[in-house]
């Protein structure tokens, strides 16, 4: 089963989630948490001036480099699975024309405990916002359309995970060093 899927037409987040959960019932003894995030196309423009509220969106167009996007989404799932204890994880992403109100992305993971599930779900969602080769064009009801720029807030969030990782690695190194020192001490004594 693929861990990442691109959909070029509408897909039902609930049905996808049901299938994902059902297909991973192999370990009911262990799996105790399902966390998911579903992103929906909304009518508000990303860089909207409050006074221009009349010009709402009709749809989003997501241009995509499919082969590379799949690879990138699968990388994100793989990373999440090495960072947290997960039983399964998946990312489903819509591409092409997405009318307002429809699902753009579904991220889900199964784990023994809620913390791993929540953190991994958040990590994958933050990465999906910046890494796969996808480009959004807003299509307004008025007919106006515009390609979006990268969102600085999304970039910051993704970078913060990198820092967390470095902190985690540093902590692990410190713990290893302490352990080694303790072992040496034991050896001497």
């Amino acid at each position: 089963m693929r861990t990442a899927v691109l959909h070029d037409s509408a897909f039902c987040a609930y049905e996808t989630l049901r299938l994902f959960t059902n297909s991973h019932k192999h370990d009911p003894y262990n799996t105790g948490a399902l966390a998911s995030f579903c992103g929906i196309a909304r009518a508000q423009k990303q860089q909207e001036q409050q006074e221009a509220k009349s010009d709402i969106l009709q749809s989003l167009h997501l241009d995509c480099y499919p082969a590379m996007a799949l690879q990138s989404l699968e990388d994100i799932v793989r990373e999440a699975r090495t960072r947290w204890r997960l039983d399964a994880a998946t990312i489903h992403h819509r591409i092409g024309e997405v009318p307002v109100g429809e699902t753009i992305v579904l991220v889900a993971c199964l784990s023994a405990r809620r913390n791993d599930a929540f953190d991994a779900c958040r990590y994958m969602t933050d990465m999906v916002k910046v890494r796969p080769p996808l480009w959004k064009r807003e299509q307004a009801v008025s007919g106006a359309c515009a390609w979006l720029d990268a969102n600085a807030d999304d970039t910051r969030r993704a970078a913060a995970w990198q820092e967390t990782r470095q902190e985690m690695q540093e902590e692990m190194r410190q713990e290893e060093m302490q352990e080694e020192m303790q072992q040496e001490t034991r050896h001497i004594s």
Partner: protein
Amino acid sequence: MKILYFAWFAEKLGTREEDIDACDISDKRLDSLDKLVAFLCARNEVYRSIFAQKSLVKCAVNKRVVEGDTPISPDDEIAFFPPITGG
């Protein structure tokens, strides 16, 4: 060599994909990204306007993002695109 364009690059150029054949490559020795960009820019103003602002041009060779000049070969798939705006 397969060249792909995405988002507003594709819109501006009016194409998403093109093949540059081996003749072009051996004549012009397109063995690096910088040489390929120079070759494309020599074509017309549209290409030049796309590649004018280096910080807005991202590139992937065989589906891996690369930074700066990189060696390329005739079998490579080269993609040019604006900064990724994500899902």
